């Protein structure tokens, strides 16, 4: 085993009603996913401002994932539809600027999908780990 | 295409459908126009493949009694598509015999424009090693 194995920093924004509950369910079912994932609870995926995503990268995140209710199931009826458009465009712009598109993701996870939450996180962490450290959107001042 | 030694896995993989989805309603057998002629009926194919009981299926002539009419595929409420298992067992049997009824280079002459795509693909699967 390598000593200095790369451990990515992953910020996961989870909506309170579905995905946060889905993450709780993953916990209740003892479904393991890497500790690199840290969750921020937001009321709805539509609360996630692209600025937060960029901020995370600036501060040293290697991947950012946004989880919300499935389209049509938003607790606030339409929030995730707006989030979907916003994030699609943001991700597309990042890709356009040559920033690895695999570092960002949107996943819809319902309160019942604990297994999906864990699987998603496992997969995302694996993807980001493969990409390595975020270099293209880093802010050197924030490095230790 | 490489085959592992596990017969069950091979059959399931070549069938391309999941026997675990079966809820054992028997509609396939109910709907089969030739069911009464078969020693093992369509629903049994699904069940036995799942159990890994492939040998008896390979040795029964039921595999040749299936008309590939796909009535069971059409009507299966769970998308299990039993005919695909029967086909998979047939293919497994042919491969195991290691003898081809037809040589591969004979096939082009036999191709008929109106032949369903399914049949062509099936033939290629059967006769390729």
């Amino acid at each position: 085993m390598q000593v200095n194995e790369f451990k990515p920093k992953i910020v996961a924004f989870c909506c309170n009603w579905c995905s946060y509950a889905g993450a709780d369910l993953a916990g209740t079912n003892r479904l393991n996913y890497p500790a690199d994932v840290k969750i921020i609870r937001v009321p709805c995926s539509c609360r996630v401002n692209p600025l937060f995503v960029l901020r995370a990268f600036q501060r040293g995140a290697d991947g950012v994932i946004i989880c919300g209710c499935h389209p049509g199931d938003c607790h606030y009826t339409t929030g995730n539809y707006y989030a979907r458009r916003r994030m699609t465009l943001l991700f597309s712009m990042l890709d356009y600027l040559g920033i690895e598109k695999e570092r960002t993701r949107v996943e819809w996870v319902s309160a019942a999908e604990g297994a999906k939450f864990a699987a998603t996180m496992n997969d995302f962490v694996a993807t980001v780990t493969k990409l390595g450290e975020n270099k293209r959107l880093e802010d050197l001042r924030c490095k230790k | 295409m490489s085959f592992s030694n596990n017969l069950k896995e091979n059959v399931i993989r070549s069938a391309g459908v999941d026997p675990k989805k079966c809820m054992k309603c028997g509609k396939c057998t109910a709907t089969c126009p030739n069911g009464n002629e078969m020693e093992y009926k369509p629903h049994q194919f699904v069940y036995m493949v799942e159990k890994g009981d492939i040998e008896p299926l390979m040795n029964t002539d039921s595999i040749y009694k299936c008309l590939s009419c796909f009535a069971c595929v059409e009507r299966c409420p769970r998308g299990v598509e039993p005919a695909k298992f029967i086909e998979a067992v047939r293919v497994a049997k042919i491969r195991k015999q290691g003898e081809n009824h037809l040589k591969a280079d004979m096939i082009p002459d036999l191709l008929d424009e109106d032949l369903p795509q399914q049949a062509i693909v099936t033939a290629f699967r059967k006769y390729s090693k």
Partner: protein
Amino acid sequence: MQEVMKNKAKELLASGEVRAVIGWKKGEFCYDITPAVFTNAEEIDNGFIYDDFCGANLSKYLIKEAHKDGKVLVFLKPCDTYSFNQLLSEHRINREKVYVVGVSCDGKVDIEKIKRTVGDGIIALSSDGDKISVETLYDKYEINRADALAERCVNCKSKKHVAYDELLGDEGEVLDSKRFDEVEMIENMTADERFEFWRNELSRCIRCNACRNVCPACSCEKCIFDNDNSGYVNKAPVTSFEENMFHIIRAFHVAGRCTDCGECSRVCPQGIPLHLLNRKFIKDINTLYGDYQAGEDPEARGPLTSYTEKDPEPSVVTDKE
């Protein structure tokens, strides 16, 4: 055209219909035109101009001017009318206080392009149909007008006036432009090439805010990048991140609202092709959510304030090959 416009302006000022006229004022040389507010016939006679260099989009000045008492006349080129409509839809302009006179436009000339051909020392310029004659301190030149047109005019999206009270000239038509070709070219690069391309461009940014301040869509009372309390205050491009951040967010904030007037690229002192960021969003919106031209219809709902159940998932970006 210029004379007709001057007469129109003087006529409406004289009748008291409008209290002021927003137009273009001639400068020190033959190309350095300044947007200006004229309040009497004398000012118009002395300074008003409408020529190849009147590229500035006057619609944004209406936010300020239309708050004053009385009506103001504004001359808008076709592309400016889109910005005008967009501002209307966002309630930034009081329509009743503006008298819009639409003026036709056959493309504006980019002085930088001319300078790149003839060098420094331009002392006289004259346009004659397809040709532009340039006299410098050192030589005389004749160049094709088409070669000197601003990028946004070469790829003009529309010569149609979408808002006016009165038209001087034709209403014009929406054009079939090639404005997304360059975006597509960048999209077709590898990620590394794109990164290189944009680093090379954005690293020149000096954060002078000209792009933001000239942009009709960037008309916030207080920009988050100037707001000490926003947490994003960002005064200088200290790191590559801040260069990226400013331009990504600026483009995002105007996404769905940007009419592609091209002012950002025109004013950038560092020559950064900022329109390519905005156009990327426009292209994506058109592809993913259906064609949408901001400002075409002031009643339309913008693509980021609407949705359909069948919108593509963000995975169209993150999972694409």
